[in-house]
């Protein structure tokens, strides 16, 4: 089937029909799309790069949002203690969150799926080894594992990605392994073996597509968690260093000045974070319910 036919088949499918009629799913997709746009184009559209020290003016610090007294029309949502425009800071923060969310999820998805496929298909000692690792890791909360890695290696963007990936691959591995084990006994796999395809090909060309559905669901739901985790770790001061943008760091800054009545530094970044994760979860929820055969 050529691309045009595939697209029209998809548009007529039950899944897409359910999507069209589900306002939540559509809202989620729209939100995610807007955030993606922000992440990619945002920094070019805002007036200030809040992380370029040369562009900041301390005289601009602590200006309230535009609807309060004492505000400056240049800064719609106010400024922080360094004179950073909240809007700009948030936009840069969004880019960081989206990037980290995406990277971590991609890494976990790849590593987890590959390990899960191998584990489920080959079985035996390799399976026990991988599953043993999975089980040990599952008994510990991901936050703790991430903390462990960050405490040991220090702060930094790539270190956070590493730390969060450490605990994230596990769910994929387990799910994929289960599906791989179920699929390997099916006839089409037998047929492929008989034809003489090497194992690698069978795994990736034949079994993998059948495993993708739960993987996609896990991925959409995981991005939100990753984004929140990064924000949390940054807030605690063990995540992204202060020289880089992060929504979590912004909230942390705001926390320090909470009692001076400078509420906007904390509230807006958090709100934006929440919105981003809500979008992810809306779509993720829809996909999960859609792909769950047991609910039909």
């Amino acid at each position: 089937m050529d691309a045009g036919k595939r697209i029209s088949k998809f548009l007529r499918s039950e899944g897409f029909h359910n999507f069209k009629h589900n306002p939540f799913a559509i809202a989620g997709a729209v939100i995610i799309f807007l955030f993606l746009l922000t992440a990619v184009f945002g920094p070019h559209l805002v007036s200030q790069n809040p992380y370029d020290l040369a562009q900041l003016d301390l005289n601009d610090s602590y200006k309230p949002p535009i609807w309060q007294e004492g505000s400056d029309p240049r800064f719609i949502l106010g400024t922080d203690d360094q004179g950073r425009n909240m809007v700009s800071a948030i936009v840069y923060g969004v880019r960081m969150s989206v990037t980290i969310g995406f990277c971590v999820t991609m890494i976990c998805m790849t590593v987890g799926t590959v390990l899960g496929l191998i584990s489920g298909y080959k079985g035996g000692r390799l399976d026990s080894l991988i599953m043993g690792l999975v089980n040990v890791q599952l008994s510990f909360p991901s936050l703790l594992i991430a903390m462990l890695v960050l405490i040991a290696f220090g702060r930094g963007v790539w270190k956070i990605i590493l730390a969060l990936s450490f605990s994230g691959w596990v769910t994929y591995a387990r799910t994929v392994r289960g599906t791989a084990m179920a699929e390997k006994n099916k006839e089409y796999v037998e047929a492929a073996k008989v034809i003489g395809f090497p194992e690698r090909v069978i795994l990736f060309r034949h079994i993998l597509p059948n495993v993708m559905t739960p993987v996609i669901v896990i991925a959409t739901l995981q991005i939100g968690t990753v984004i929140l985790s990064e924000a949390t770790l940054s807030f605690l001061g063990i995540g992204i260093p202060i020289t880089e943008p992060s929504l979590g760091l912004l909230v942390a800054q705001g926390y320090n000045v909470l009692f001076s009545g400078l509420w906007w530094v904390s509230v807006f970044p958090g709100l934006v974070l929440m919105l981003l994760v809500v979008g992810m979860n809306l779509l993720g929820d829809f996909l999960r319910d859609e792909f769950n055969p047991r609910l039909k």
Partner: protein
Amino acid sequence: MLVVIAIVATIVFIFVNMLGDPAVLLLPPEASPEELAKARAAMGLDKSPWEQYKLFAVNVLHGDLGNSFVFREPAMKLIFERMPATLEIVILAMIIAALIAIPLGVYVGAHPNTFLSRSILSLSLLCISMPTFWFGIVLILVFSVQLGWLPSSGRGDVVVVWGMRLSFLTWDGLKHIILPAVTLAVQQLATQLRLTRAGMMEVLRQDYIKFAKAKGVSPHDVLYGHALKNALIPVITVYGLEFGGLVVFATITETIFAWPGMGKLLIDSINISDRPVIIAYLMLASMLFVVINFIVDILYTIVDPRIDLR
């Protein structure tokens, strides 16, 4: 179970050694080369790695994880002192979460298409997507800064019970405990609710539910008699596992509310590089999980008659 603890201890040991010179790790940063050499010798670092490991193991078994740089007291002792505070908010949070999540989850699972159900579900989505630390800050803004009803930090007055200092038994203590506990409870609540709902929805599709209806059992009894027990089995076990995670997660809440628990100690220690305390916390937290997992496994066999103790 002991095997797993041993494995965990070994991992921590490897980690510590991986990070470079343990002497540097465990001594204040200003130590001179002679002090370092002395410390190394005292720690047996001039011995072979295997010897070191044995020493470490022996020390761990004695609960000796070194002294805090800052407090000059055994790290373990410091952590244990703060444990009741952490446990207070964690347990209170779990109770709050369960009391709200389970009944609501049952309702939403049984009647998924009502307006109320959909609203509850949307609200729960919001709660899951919300960064906990931000929510705590918002609570402080509203209840402390704006309304001035509740204190924004610290722990209230304590009462000593069995050697433990507990604060929820005093009115002042309750005022202090409420905001942190609620902050902690929110995400828990939402997850529990969804889990209960999912469990209910799955159980209600089972044949034995239809059979119960065919026997003439009333809808109320079908829900609470037949469906609930089956639906709660996975919920209870997740609940148990969440407990451990919540203890760690409480770190955030403790930081925001300056609540003197284990988590706050950890963050403070990280900020001033009080390494023995950090290591002690990690070891303790890890052990806690192993124990919890074990208990949950046993709990599972009790609750589900299909599972044997084997």
